[in-house]
């Protein structure tokens, strides 16, 4: 009990000094009254805060203030909603590009193939736990690495992968080495990786 009183009186003393300094630095004019109101509110909060803690542990005034600040901000943020969507799209796009680049550098450094085309499917359901996880990966590799080195092509991501490669030049490969490297590094099941090789 004596500690409680001690803390409380120290708080009051410090807030008194605090307010005195504030009184010196606030500009004198018509706005002074408004500032005094806010200072008074804060003084009340500091005075009754220990009693609130004493009476009930459930009430948290700081949370209350934050809730009020947030509700004010939320009202303001309706316009920002469209910006948020835009930002989310951009983030997903950047993420996909990074993943693709990562895969390309991985494949090209670990094998003798050159990446011709790359197609990834990413879990875009925000509510799920593994949001952003790589679901499927379809790679087209070229055996002749040195040829047409310059025209690497990154196609847009398609969620639907049901289409099949009809071109006879492309052959599905079971190269364990590449599959293992990819599944280890990207945390994706090797059954979900399809690799075609351009003969």
């Amino acid at each position, binding site marked *: 009990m004596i500690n409680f009183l001690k803390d409380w009186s120290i708080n009051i003393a410090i807030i008194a000094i605090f307010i005195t300094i*504030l009184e010196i630095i606030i500009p004198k004019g018509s706005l002074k009254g*408004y500032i005094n109101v806010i200072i008074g509110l804060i003084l009340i909060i500091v005075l009754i805060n220990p009693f609130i803690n004493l009476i009930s542990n459930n*009430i948290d005034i700081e949370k209350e203030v934050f809730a009020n600040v947030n509700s004010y901000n939320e009202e303001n943020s309706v316009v920002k909603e469209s910006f948020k969507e835009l930002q989310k799209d951009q983030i997903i796009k950047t993420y996909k590009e990074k993943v693709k680049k990562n895969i390309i550098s991985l494949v090209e450094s670990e094998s003798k193939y050159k990446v011709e085309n790359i197609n990834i499917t990413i879990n875009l359901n925000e509510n799920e736990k593994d949001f952003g996880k790589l679901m499927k990966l379809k790679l087209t590799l070229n055996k002749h690495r040195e040829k047409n080195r310059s025209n690497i092509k990154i196609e847009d991501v398609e969620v639907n992968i049901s289409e099949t490669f009809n071109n006879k030049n492309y052959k599905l490969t079971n190269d364990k080495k590449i599959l293992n490297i990819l599944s280890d590094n990207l945390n994706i099941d090797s059954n979900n990786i399809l690799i075609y090789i351009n003969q």
Partner: protein
Amino acid sequence: MEILQIVGIGLIATVLSVILRQEKPEFALQVSVVTGIIIFLFVITKLTYVVQVLNNLAERVDIDFIYFSTILKVIGIAYIAEFGAQISKDAGEGAIAAKIELAGKILILVLSIPILIALLDLIIKIMP
């Protein structure tokens, strides 16, 4: 001895302004605006020390940082609004000065509303 510099700048500007006011009143206004900004910049760095002390005090008390930042924002708004209003008044535009002060009051009110509402909620909750 910053006070000598500031007083020197102030006196020179005052003399210039008085001389210019008879010839070209619009330049006199500009002189007073620039002088105000220079003096403000001189002391604004000193003010950081005061703010630091206040910060230390605020950390020692149990009050949360949000109150402190609110107070600082309010003081900043008050200073800037006051500054602008004075300049407008000097130029003889009392109406614009009043509008600037009105804007300052509204912004201060908006900042203080979360604290006010929180206090009210709190008092209602304490009631048995």
